[in-house]
């Protein structure tokens, strides 16, 4: 019982600090919000004619098609951007003091996860509002939409764990490219612009084996109110969380051991 209370106290304290820092520093909040919005504007605005390609049939429209990608992208990068903050905490020596003061250090990861979640929720509201203004038609039921958002939250947590692990290993903001490049590649090797069935050649093979594809296709089906392969997508998300949270915990132990 005491362990649970210690974990919760540490998590809430770190979470509150992360949220406070982000909300009081526009240079931390704005890039994370502007990046997905710009992608949405560029893709949904510039590429909307792709909906006329033979075989492209998506009831929520091209804005909805891109919304699902940008929502997942913002969730993943919400985690990664929080990872930059963790690395900065190590550089400034704050993490060292945090480790000393924490009675339950795994709560530190949970705290950063709370911060990443709140940060992403703010971004996701903006992305959703812009998508609706841009003409996205929501065909899914409230349950479908809840499923869509829960998947995005799971992605946010998984990639927070990834970035947290990198930050705790390298303990420097210079590890930023290692945090974001693999995430960027994973996201863009999914069917970003057209459905998987319309991709051809090597990109089709890569996208088929990419776990993000399952999440993206499931999210698109939920928005369209035609759920498909949602169970598989949830299994993939759980797998990502288990694997990447283990990575984060191991990296935390590594950081503890390195003093």
């Amino acid at each position, binding site marked *: 019982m005491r362990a649970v209370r210690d974990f919760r106290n540490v998590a809430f304290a770190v979470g509150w600090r992360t949220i406070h820092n982000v909300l009081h520093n526009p240079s931390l909040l704005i890039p994370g919000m502007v990046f997905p919005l710009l992608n949405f504007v560029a893709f949904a605005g510039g*590429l909307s004619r792709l909906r006329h390609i033979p075989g492209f049939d998506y009831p929520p429209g091209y804005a909805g098609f891109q919304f699902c990608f940008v929502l997942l992208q913002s969730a993943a990068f919400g985690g990664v951007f929080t990872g930059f903050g963790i690395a900065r905490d190590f550089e400034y020596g704050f993490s060292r003091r945090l480790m000393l003061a924490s009675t339950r250090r795994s709560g530190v990861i949970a705290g950063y996860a709370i911060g990443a979640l709140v940060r992403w929720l703010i971004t996701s509201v903006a992305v959703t509002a812009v998508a609706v203004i841009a003409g996205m038609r929501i065909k899914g039921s409230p349950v479908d939409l809840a499923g869509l958002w829960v998947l995005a939250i799971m992605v946010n947590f998984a990639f927070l764990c990834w970035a947290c692990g990198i930050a705790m290993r390298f303990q420097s903001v210079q590890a930023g490219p290692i945090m974001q490049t693999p995430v960027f590649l994973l996201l863009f090797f999914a069917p970003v612009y057209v459905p998987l069935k319309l991709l051809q050649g090597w990109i089709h093979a890569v996208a088929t084996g990419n776990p993000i594809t399952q999440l993206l296709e499931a999210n698109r089906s939920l928005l369209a109110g035609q759920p498909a392969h949602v169970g598989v997508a949830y299994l993939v998300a759980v797998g990502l969380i288990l694997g990447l949270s283990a990575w984060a915990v191991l990296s935390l132990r590594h950081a503890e051991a390195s003093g």
Partner: protein
Amino acid sequence: MRDTLGQVYHLARRSVVRQARQPANVVAPIIFPLGLLAVNSGGLQPATAIPGFPTDRFVAFALAIPFMQGALFATMNAGTDLARDIQTGFLNRLSLTPVRGVALVVGQLAGVAFVATIQAVVYVLVAYAVHVHPAAGAAGVVVLLGLAIAIAIGFGAAGVFMALRTGSGESVQGLFPVLFVFLLVSSMNFPRNLIEAGWFRWLATVNPVSYLIEGLRSLIIEGWNGEALALAFAFSGILIALSLVASGFALRTRMTRT
């Protein structure tokens, strides 16, 4: 005049050597745009099925984009290097010598031209490797390289201006997303006449970056399109002129401050 040319030579040599000694400055502007080219040309290949699309291979259509992205990297590299010179006091020491402002700016841009040339040659080689043969032929490749270098110098001069204005490498880096917006809201991924959303087509039409891309693209997929080339060279010339004039004013202020 001879003195100025001598100063330009020494500062240009320093700039080129500096770039060559930072492999990340040369490699990143090549690898990153080529990675995006691979992703986009694979993902957007179905777009070529749209009636009126100017080519049946999206990789040929998209090949102009790496040249632009490379130019954006040039902005950052030139600006960050000069900002470092300001922060480390090199510019202060230089201001005690008879070196002329024009030599400083032109010398700095030599490094940009050096990297831009390497980038452009690599991109052209990649084009041939993926069986995209520029429609304008061998002479077109020469013009393509010239235009790419001119665009990189224009953006590099903008980077020099930003560095002189702000004096901070971090500020120059922070401006990258702002410049990237110009690339995103352009005819980068679709021909302007096929962009469906009216507001986006309008933005792409008033965005000079669209004309730079279309000039490069015309040589690859169309052949010799006088209008596209004239617009591209005109806009790159305007960018170079404006950035150099602004840099001149900023340099004067910077030298006064120091």
